[in-house]
C-alpha cells in the first residue's frame, strides 16, 4: 500500500501535468475555430446530459489535420525545423565533444572550475542571453566592428536575421546539454584502456576512434537528443535571431495561436509536432536505460 502510494505520486504528476493538458490540446485540435471565448467550438455542455455529450462528440472532426496537409506552409515548416534541428545538433556535437574531452583531460583541480564555466550561463535568463547575441551579430555589432577594425573584412557580414544566426543561437544555448552527458561518459573512461590500446598497436588517433569514441557513444546519443528535441520546437531563438525566411514550426505555432487566434489549427500543429518528437524521445529513453544497465 505504501509502495503504491509512492509510485502513484509520479503517475499522478504525469497525469495532471502532461496527459490531461495533452488531451485538452488534442480536443481543441479536433474543434473548429469561432469568434468567442474560448475561441473554438464545440463546448461540452453537461447541462444537456447525454444528448449534449453526443452532440459534442459529433462536432469533432479531423478537418484541421487535413488542412495541415493541404497548405504547404506546414510541412515545409516541419521539414525546415527538422533540418535546422539536425544541423544544429551536429554543430553542437562538433563544438561540444572537444570541450568535454578537454575537460576530462584537464588536471583534477581544474575540473570543478571548468564544470562551473559550462553551467554558468544558466545563471542568466535565457531570453537575455539570446537577445544579447543580436548586439553581437548585427551589422553594426561587436563581431563586425572587431573584424573590420582588424581589417579582415571591409563590408559588414550579414549574420543577424539569417539561418546562420539561428544556428549560432541554438549551438550557444544548448551547448551545456551536449557537453555534460559526454563529459560524464568520458570521465568514467579508464585511462588504462587507452594505454592498453596503444600497447596493442594503436596510434593515439586510432585508440581514440576505437576506444574513446565507442565508449562515449551513450553520452553522444544522450547529448544529441537533449539538443535535438528542444531545438525542433524552438521558438525564441528563430524569433529573435532568425529572419523572415527562417521557417520553423515553433514560429508557425506561435503565429497561429497569437496572430491568427486559430487555436484548433495551432493545436493540430502542436499534436503533430509531439508525434514527430515521440520517436526520438522513445529512442532517448531506450538509450538511458541501456546506459543504466551498463553502469551496473
Amino acid at each position, binding site marked *: 500500500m505504501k509502495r503504491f502510494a509512492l509510485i502513484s505520486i509520479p503517475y499522478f504528476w504525469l497525469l495532471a501535468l502532461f496527459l490531461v493538458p495533452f488531451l485538452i490540446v488534442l480536443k481543441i485540435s479536433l474543434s473548429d475555430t469561432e469568434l468567442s471565448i474560448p475561441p473554438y467550438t464545440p463546448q461540452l455542455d453537461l447541462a444537456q446530459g447525454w444528448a449534449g455529450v453526443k452532440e459534442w462528440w459529433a462536432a469533432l472532426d479531423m478537418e484541421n489535420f487535413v488542412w495541415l496537409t493541404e497548405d504547404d506552409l506546414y510541412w515545409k515548416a516541419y521539414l525546415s525545423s527538422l533540418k535546422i534541428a539536425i544541423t544544429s545538433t551536429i554543430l553542437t556535437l562538433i563544438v561540444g565533444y572537444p570541450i568535454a574531452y578537454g575537460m576530462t583531460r584537464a588536471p583534477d583541480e581544474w575540473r570543478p572550475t571548468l564544470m562551473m564555466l559550462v553551467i554558468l550561463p544558466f545563471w542568466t535568463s535565457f531570453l537575455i542571453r539570446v537577445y544579447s547575441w543580436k548586439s553581437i551579430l548585427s551589422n553594426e555589432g561587436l563581431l563586425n566592428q572587431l573584424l573590420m577594425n582588424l581589417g579582415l573584412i571591409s563590408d559588414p557580414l550579414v549574420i543577424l536575421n539569417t539561418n546562420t544566426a539561428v544556428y549560432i543561437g541554438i549551438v550557444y544555448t544548448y551547448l551545456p546539454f551536449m557537453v555534460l552527458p559526454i563529459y560524464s561518459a568520458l570521465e568514467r573512461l579508464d585511462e588504462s584502456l587507452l*594505454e*592498453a590500446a*596503444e*600497447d*596493442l*598497436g594503436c596510434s593515439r588517433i586510432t585508440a581514440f576512434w576505437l576506444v574513446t569514441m565507442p565508449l562515449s557513444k551513450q553520452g553522444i546519443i544522450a547529448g544529441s537528443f537533449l539538443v535535438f528535441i528542444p531545438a525542433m520546437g524552438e521558438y525564441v531563438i528563430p524569433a529573435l535571431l532568425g529572419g523572415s525566411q527562417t521557417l520553423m514550426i515553433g514560429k508557425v505555432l506561435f503565429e497561429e495561436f497569437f496572430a491568427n487566434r486559430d487555436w484548433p489549427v495551432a493545436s493540430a500543429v502542436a499534436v503533430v509536432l509531439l508525434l514527430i518528437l515521440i520517436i526520438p524521445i522513445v529512442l532517448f529513453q531506450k538509450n538511458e536505460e541501456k546506459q543504466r544497465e551498463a553502469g551496473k
Partner: protein
Amino acid sequence: MSDAATALAPVFAPWNDPAAEPIIQFKNVTKRYGDFTAIDNQTIDIYPQEFFALLGPSGCGKTTMMRMLGGFETVTEGTITIDGQDMSAVPPNKRAVNMMFQSYALFPHLSVAENIAFGLKRDKMPKDQVEARVEEMLSLVQLNKFAARKPHQISGGQRQRVALARSLAKAPKLLLLDEPLGALDKKLRQDTQFELMDIQEQTGTTFVIVTHDQEEAMTVASRIAVMDHGKIIQVDTPAKIYEEPGSVYVADFIGDVNLIEGNVTKSGDDHATISWASGQQDLIGIAHDEIPTGTRATLAVRPEKVNISTERPEGMTNVIHGKVHDIAYLGNMSTYVIETPSGQLIKAQAANTRRIARRAITWEQEVWLSFTDTAGVVLTS
C-alpha cells in the same frame, strides 16, 4: 653453482653464463618526476625466457620500471635496450612488448574474442589467421565457451585470463604483468600462479612481473629483484634471496626472520662470529666477505632453521638459552617465541609430528635454541 652440477642437470641460469645475451638492458636508468627520483641510476640485465619479478613495497619504483619498458614513461637519464635496440624513441605501439594491466583494461564494448583479436587486427593480419589465433589463445586460457561474452558477463578470474590471452596474442618478445593476480582471492591466486608458469613455459616468452606479494614472486619467478626507494637492493633466484639475503632489508622483506644484532669478533673462511649478549655464547653465520672485527652486524636466521629443545643440545655451533614467551599453533607446525634473559624475542618453528597433548614444551619453560653455522647470514647493511 659448480660446473659439474650444471652438466648433470641443465639448469636454466643464463645470468651465470657470460655468453648469454640479455634481452632487456637497463643502463644507468634514472627517472625523475620533478624533484622526486622514482628510479635512481639502475643497471640490470634480463635474459630471454626469464620469469623476472620486480618485488617491493608500493612506491618503491617497480611499476615505473615496468612502465618504462612498456613505453608509457620516458627515461630521464640512461638507456633501456630491448634486443639490443635503444627504446627511448620507440612509442608503445611500436614495441614488441605487451602488457597485462593491473585493472586488466579489457575493452568493455568488445566481446572476449574481439578483445583478444584487437591487437592482431591492428597488425592488419588476414581475417582467417586472426580467427585461428584467437581460437588458439582461447584454448590456451580455456575460455572457448566464453568467446562471445562481454567482459562484464564473466568472473574476475576469467577476466584475468582474457587479459593474459590478449597480451599474449601478438606473441610478444616480452610480456609485462602489472600485479596480475592482485584482484583475485587467495585460492584462485595460487592456482593461477601455476597456470602462469605453465603458459610462460609453453610460449617461451620472457615475462617481467611486478608484485608486492613476496610469496607470489617466490613461486613464479626465475629471478627476483627486490626494490626499495627507487633502487634495486638485490637480484637473485628466489632460493638465494631467501637463504642468503644480502641485506637486512631483503631478509626482513622476504618471509619471517630473526634479526640478532651484535659485534663481529671473528671473520674469515666464509663465516663470521658475533658477540650479541652477555651470558650468551657467540653466534656464527655465513659471511662471504671478510668483516673487520668490532663492526656492528646482524645475524639473520629463519625461524624454521632454529631447533628448540628442553635440554642443552650437544655439539651444536649456535646455542641460545631462554624461556618460552609465546606459542602459536598453526596446525602443521608451531611457532615458539623465546625470550632471552636480555629481553630479546627469538622465533623458532617446529613441525608438529606429535599430537598436541604429547608436546613437551609449554609456556614459561626454560629451553635451548640451536642452529648450524650455515643456517644464518651475518649482514652489515
